[in-house]
């Protein structure tokens, strides 16, 4: 027969101080782990939702990033006439030749200078990014030294308000608008006219990349292959979504350090939980002997104490997750290894993260609770009663 769980709950309540302190210790470990997992989840979200499945990104063969490519402008007309490209209202193919460059801007909070991506695009570039909404001002005008800034840039850098001027490359740029790209990595970019930007960075006569809008997903796939297979072009097509999905690798360093930290802290917490459970067993040795005499078997005593340890760690997990709630949605930046500039993302506490955290805590509880529970179940009845 199993010992009811309410017995364990009452025992935990009885020794409040000990329970709370041990649970808090576990909570701190869970908080650290949840924090790191939520960071990675936020990063995943920023990249996973970036890009449109209908957009085909074209770069030079062998290039891995828009930053490190570059092909001759004479190839662009050929690209534009490929089959499967959507047309705008005037019957022109929706295609944009672009330049992505990096500039250094000072952070608003004075914590240093950061690399930021500047994207020069053709007017069609805006049509390729339909999910991007203007929230203030207007879009940049062709032939003008004007830029529109992403929401994250507006929030994190000084001089990024409508009407401000920014100083980079060969002179001043007027900020004419702010756009919201829905938390994707576009939010960490500045957009302007491709010719103006190419001129300022001495890159006329070519593009670092081109974007083509396909009519439907099948056409997008065909277009991608068509570009890559065309021997005249020496270019490579990629779905925009694929390109961004590959950038999540930027979180590699956090992932590695985070795992090491979480494991070391978890081992420490397991020892602490073990300590608490051993004490619980020692205090209750007479009680355990009584339970045995009443007829509870060794396995049910073992199970009961393991359950108690797991309950303790669950309490820790809940407290740990609650502790992280105020930080949910907090934004931070990370150096993107592909674009060589900062991508802003927010801490994202997902259900998956919460479940992983609970599982993580349960493992700690099991690791800490099994040995003491084993000890409890193996106790000699007579010695314990006499103690």
């Amino acid at each position, binding site marked *: 027969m199993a010992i009811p769980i309410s017995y364990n709950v009452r025992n935990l309540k009885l020794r409040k101080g000990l329970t709370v302190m041990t649970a808090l210790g576990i909570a701190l470990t869970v908080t650290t782990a949840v924090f790191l997992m939520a960071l990675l989840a936020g990063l995943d979200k920023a990249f996973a939702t970036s890009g449109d499945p209908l957009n085909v990104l074209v770069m030079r063969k062998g290039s891995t990033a828009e930053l490190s490519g570059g092909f001759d402008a004479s190839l662009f007309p050929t690209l534009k006439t490929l089959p499967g490209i959507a047309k705008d209202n005037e019957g022109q193919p929706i295609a944009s030749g672009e330049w992505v460059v990096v500039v250094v801007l000072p952070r608003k909070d004075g914590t*240093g200078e950061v690399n930021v991506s500047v994207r020069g695009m053709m007017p069609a570039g805006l049509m390729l990014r339909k999910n991007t909404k203007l929230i203030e001002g207007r879009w940049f005008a062709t032939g003008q030294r004007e830029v529109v800034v992403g929401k994250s840039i507006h929030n994190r850098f000084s001089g990024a308000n409508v009407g401000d001027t920014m100083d980079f490359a060969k002179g001043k740029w007027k900020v004419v608008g702010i756009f919201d790209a829905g938390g994707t990595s576009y939010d960490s970019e500045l957009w302007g006219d491709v010719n103006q930007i190419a001129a300022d960075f001495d890159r006329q006569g070519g593009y670092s990349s081109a974007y083509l809008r396909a009519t439907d997903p099948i056409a997008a796939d065909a277009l991608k292959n068509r570009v890559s297979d065309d021997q005249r072009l020496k270019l490579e097509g990629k779905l925009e979504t694929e390109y961004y999905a590959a950038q999540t690798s930027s979180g590699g360093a956090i992932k590695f350090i985070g795992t090491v930290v979480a494991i*070391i802290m978890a081992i420490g917490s397991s020892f602490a939980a073990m300590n608490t459970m051993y004490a619980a067993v020692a205090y209750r040795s007479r009680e355990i002997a009584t339970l045995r005499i009443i007829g509870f078997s060794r396995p049910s005593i073992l199970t009961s104490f393991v359950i108690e340890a797991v309950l303790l760690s669950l309490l820790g997990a809940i407290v740990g997750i609650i502790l992280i709630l105020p930080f949910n949605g907090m934004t931070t930046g990370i*150096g993107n290894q592909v674009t060589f500039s900062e991508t802003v993302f927010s801490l994202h506490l997902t259900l998956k993260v919460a479940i992983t955290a609970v599982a993580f805590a349960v493992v700690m509880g099991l690791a800490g609770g099994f040995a003491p529970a084993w000890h409890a179940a193996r106790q000699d009845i007579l010695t314990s009663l006499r103690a």
Partner: protein
Amino acid sequence: MTLTRFVTKSAFRNRRRSILTVLSITFSLLLLTLMMTIWRAFYIDTGSAQSASRLVTRHKVSLTQLLPSFYREKIRAIPGVVAVAPNNWFGGKYKDFKPENFFAQFGTDPDELFKVFTDFKIPPDQLAAWQRDRAGVVVDSELAKKHGWKIGDHIMLEGTIYPVTLDLTIRGIFTAPEPTTSVYYNQKYVEEAVSFANGHAGTFAILADSPENVSKVATAVDDTFRNSPEPTKTESEKAFGLSFINSIGNVKAFILSICMAVVFATLLVSANTMAMSIRERTREVAVLKTLGFTRQTVLRLYLGEAVVVALTGGVLGCVFALLLITGLSHAPGMGMFFGGMKVTPPTLAVAMLVAGTVGLVSAIFPAYHAAKLDIVEGLRYLG
């Protein structure tokens, strides 16, 4: 029995509990030492004397903008500059594009590279061989070990920025004070293959005549090109490296918050143990007091006990941290991050201080409680 002996004896009386507490503190302190070592390497360590005399000049707009290569001669003319070598990022793919196979590839001038990086050691015959072979390359010794390269081996690098595949022959293996995970080839090789690479340099590595002159040289270089179409930004090698670390994210806040969580967790564990062990000995405290031990002595006994346990954990934590960091800095593939990391005596001292303080603080409340205990109540306590 002296009081010290009494304290150490009672600290390990309940052996299982003490060992578990010590182990728990050990892992926390291991983490703390690890974090402090990373902090020191990033923000406190100034590097070797040679590294402290070096500067890096890049385009003011950003690292991705190239500088004209004639800047090199202008920089050389600046007082305080001993040697200048260009460093051109190639960013090629080796074998596949997996991150673990990644290493830095720089195009440079074989005649001057080792005059700037004076702390890089290379046998003179290998250096001479590299200088004679335009398609030669010199590689970092740690990197050579990782990939199993020998002199005479070929490395194929497929360009991602430049449309060319380099076929390089290893002519020399150099040893740097800290693993660089870099290889250096002759920039002329790329310039001949790709016309637009001509006349450009990514960055310039500069050796100043002394560490004191570094900031003066930096200002002088930037002043020289201030009003040109291609302005520069010059900073010390250390500051240049830090800008990469900062790009990972807010590393300082990250490390600090982990340290705080660890210290607080250690405090909880230690306080828990002390509360348990002092409560168990309520009757003993009463006996001690009956024998004539004053409140102060009782207080000190228990505080001492907690400090002994915490310090034992601290010592073990430091030892494990030493082993772990030594292991990591020599592990293949970890060199780039942990390469130059060393656990220094000050770091260890801080760790031990933290351990001792945490032990002391954790015991204050239960020890005070025990010291205040009423003798009769204590003797009656059943536990």
